[in-house]
């Protein structure tokens, strides 16, 4: 069983004149986890950031806001030389900034113009049907002009009853009205108009015939829209042209900013600095030689002994093979192990996919999910996604193995089943179910295992698997405590549980066999409980029933599995029912049946990730980890950067 990587505490001391070289060297190795210095009475103070820090972060903010505006996403890297990027950075950044700001400014100007024209259009629209130049609406001494809309129709006779000196334009459709009358009659006419629901409208200030005005505005509108589009297209082309530059300079600037700000995290005096931190023991020599090379041996590096009580705070780096590494995601989701603990990644590398497979156990779903996982892994380059997909693939491998043991394919039974109601044929002709032996509860143990026909046997088996899993947890706990607190504590705290289990087992065998073994078992049980009480006190004894609860909890393996079978079986029954009602011809029901089949199994495929996944995960986290795992370790976070877009 692997433990986290062994760490060495290293301290680097030197004169401030070599601080920059030391920091550069440390950053390049990416092996040193810097402990932040907290000011105390020792007289050391944290230092100030390097001179370029402010400038670098300003540029970084600028480049990130540009990247954000352009919507630049990380992509397949084009590696550039970092000093070349740095050299061009200022001029390119300024140029980019200038072009983008002029373009966005003109875009916003044009957009304002568009809004203006929109409101002009709205003013003109009511007058559209009245073919009269707007210049004729104003500038009279003895004439009053009413321009607006009415609620009801206006007849010329209504005006002529008041006065003969008028000129009326009225559009019965839009109810727009323009009326010229002599000023003397204006009051009376106004009363009449008000009775008809007159609402005055503003007359546009520009002269011209409405329909022509509208046409010219629409033309200009189209023109402006085209110009905005072309500007946006230019910005889009900036994005493709500068994407590599932006990604690379973001990286270079991030590195510079990390280096420039490190002095804030270390102890310095007037003339000297101390950098305190951790490095994997296997890399210590490399670190020493790198720092010595960079500073011509002027920096002093030494390793400190790690005290027992300090182990709590040692940063933790996993130490697993590439195959097991994806499971570290599952560990991190819960909590990283402490430095002195067993790292159970390699244990859950077996148990998590195994329990998942035991629950799902269907060749069909396993093939579908495995293919999807492979495809996603191919399509997405991200490490986190590929780890998740690897876990899913491990799970599907076990699902196929158990699918063969259960003889299941998309809820169909592959082998023929012998039940009280006769023989049901399987999907593969000629694969007969073989009865191996009598099992518990009057069931027969067969191959392949028909889960829905041997529920009691499967509950027993699930709990048995659970007990093995739990005892593995006790063994890990035993090892952890033995290492940390000594053998005696380990036997009392974790060994006692196993002795209790042994006692129960002996007593049960004795009880059913009717032999004196029962009393031996009882004595062993009492001994175990006494040891537990010594080891963990009364709290341990109170916890005793949880052992039964934990073991029975594994019954979910068959329970969740059965629910998946029943969903699949129901879909299959519905589909076959539909096809059989209409088997003479391929018609609507046959097509509907296919749709139901695809939708039903699609739903069950999604459920096949969630239900077995969550339950298998819970069995690891609650039942298994509960027996030994503490967690809460600090992540080993080396000072450095993993370059993607640049190189030295």
């Amino acid at each position: 069983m692997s433990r986290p990587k062994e760490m060495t505490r290293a301290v680097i001391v030197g004169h401030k004149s070599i601080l920059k070289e030391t920091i550069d060297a440390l950053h390049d190795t990416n092996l040193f986890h810097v402990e932040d210095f907290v000011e105390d009475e020792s007289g050391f103070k944290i230092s100030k950031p390097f001179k370029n820090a402010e400038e670098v972060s300003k540029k970084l903010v600028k480049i990130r806001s540009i990247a954000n505006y352009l919507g630049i996403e990380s992509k397949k890297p084009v590696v550039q030389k970092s000093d070349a990027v740095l050299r061009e950075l200022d001029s390119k950044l300024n140029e980019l900034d200038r072009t983008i700001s002029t373009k966005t400014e003109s875009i916003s100007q044009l957009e304002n113009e568009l809004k203006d024209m929109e409101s002009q259009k709205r003013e003109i629209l009511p007058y559209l049907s009245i073919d009269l130049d707007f210049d004729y609406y104003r500038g009279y001494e003895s004439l009053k002009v009413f321009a607006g809309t009415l609620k009801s129709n206006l007849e010329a006779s209504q005006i002529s009853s008041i006065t003969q000196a008028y000129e009326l334009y009225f559009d019965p459709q839009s109810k727009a009205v323009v009326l010229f009358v002599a000023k003397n009659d204006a009051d009376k006419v106004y009363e009449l108009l008000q009775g008809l629901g007159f609402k005055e409208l503003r007359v546009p200030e520009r002269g011209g015939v409405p329909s022509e005005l509208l046409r010219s505005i629409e033309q200009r509108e189209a023109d402006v829209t085209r110009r905005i589009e072309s500007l946006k297209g230019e910005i889009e082309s900036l994005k493709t042209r500068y994407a590599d530059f932006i990604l690379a300079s973001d990286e270079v600037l991030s590195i510079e900013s990390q280096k420039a700000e490190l002095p804030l995290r270390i102890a310095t005096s007037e003339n000297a600095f101390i950098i305190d931190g951790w490095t994997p023991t296997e890399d210590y020599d490399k670190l020493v030689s790198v720092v010595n090379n960079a500073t011509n041996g002027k920096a002093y590096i030494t390793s400190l002994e790690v005290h027992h009580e300090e182990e709590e705070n040692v940063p933790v780096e996993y130490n697993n093979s590439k195959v097991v590494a994806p499971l570290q995601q599952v560990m991190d989701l819960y909590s990283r192990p402490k430095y002195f603990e067993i790292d159970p990644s390699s244990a859950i590398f077996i148990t998590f996919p195994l329990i998942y497979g035991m629950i799902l156990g269907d060749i069909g779903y396993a093939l579908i999910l495995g293919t999807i996982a492979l495809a996603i892994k191919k399509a997405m380059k991200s490490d986190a996604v590929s780890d998740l997909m690897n876990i899913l693939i491990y799970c599907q491998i076990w699902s196929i193995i158990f699918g063969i043991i259960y003889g299941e394919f998309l809820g169909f039974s592959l082998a023929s089943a012998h039940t009280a109601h006769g023989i049901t044929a399987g999907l593969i002709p000629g694969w007969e179910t073989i009865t191996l032996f009598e099992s518990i509860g009057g069931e027969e143990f067969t191959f392949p295992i028909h889960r829905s026909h041997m529920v009691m046997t499967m509950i027993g088996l699930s709990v048995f698997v659970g007990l093995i899993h739990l005892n593995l947890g006790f063994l890990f706990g035993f090892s952890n405590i033995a290492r940390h607190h000594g053998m005696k504590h380990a036997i009392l705290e974790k060994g006692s549980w196993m002795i209790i289990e042994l006692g129960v087992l002996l007593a049960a065998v004795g009880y059913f066999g009717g032999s004196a073994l029962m009393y031996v078992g009882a004595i062993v049980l009492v001994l175990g409980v006494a040891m537990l009480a010594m080891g963990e006190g009364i709290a341990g004894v109170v916890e005793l029933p949880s052992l039964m609860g934990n073991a029975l909890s594994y019954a979910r393996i068959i329970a969740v599995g059965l629910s998946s079978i029943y969903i699949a079986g129901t879909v299959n029954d519905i589909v076959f029912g539909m096809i059989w009602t209409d088997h003479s011809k391929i018609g609507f029901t046959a097509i509907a049946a296919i749709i139901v089949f695809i939708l039903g199994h699609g739903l069950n495929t999604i459920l096949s990730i969630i239900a077995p996944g969550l339950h298998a995960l819970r069995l690891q986290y609650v039942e298994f980890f509960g027996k030994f795992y503490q967690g809460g370790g600090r992540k080993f976070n080396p000072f450095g950067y993993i370059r993607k877009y640049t190189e030295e």
Partner: protein
Amino acid sequence: MVDGATAGLFLDAAGMKALGAAIAIAITGYASAIAEKDIGTAAIGAMAENEGLFGKGLILTVIPETIVIFGLVVALLINQ
């Protein structure tokens, strides 16, 4: 299965068994749901503060699920 001597008040023995199993599952399922509702709400609240608590929140949320597993075991035993 149907036997005059073992017939219950309203149902025959098989019916009573099925009803018993149904009650065992239904009530334990409901109990799990109530317990998980409260824990889940709190877990989501905690996760909103700190996303790293997802693992712990998940575990705490699914702990009461054992209740319904017991119900299931009882239901299966009744139907034995």
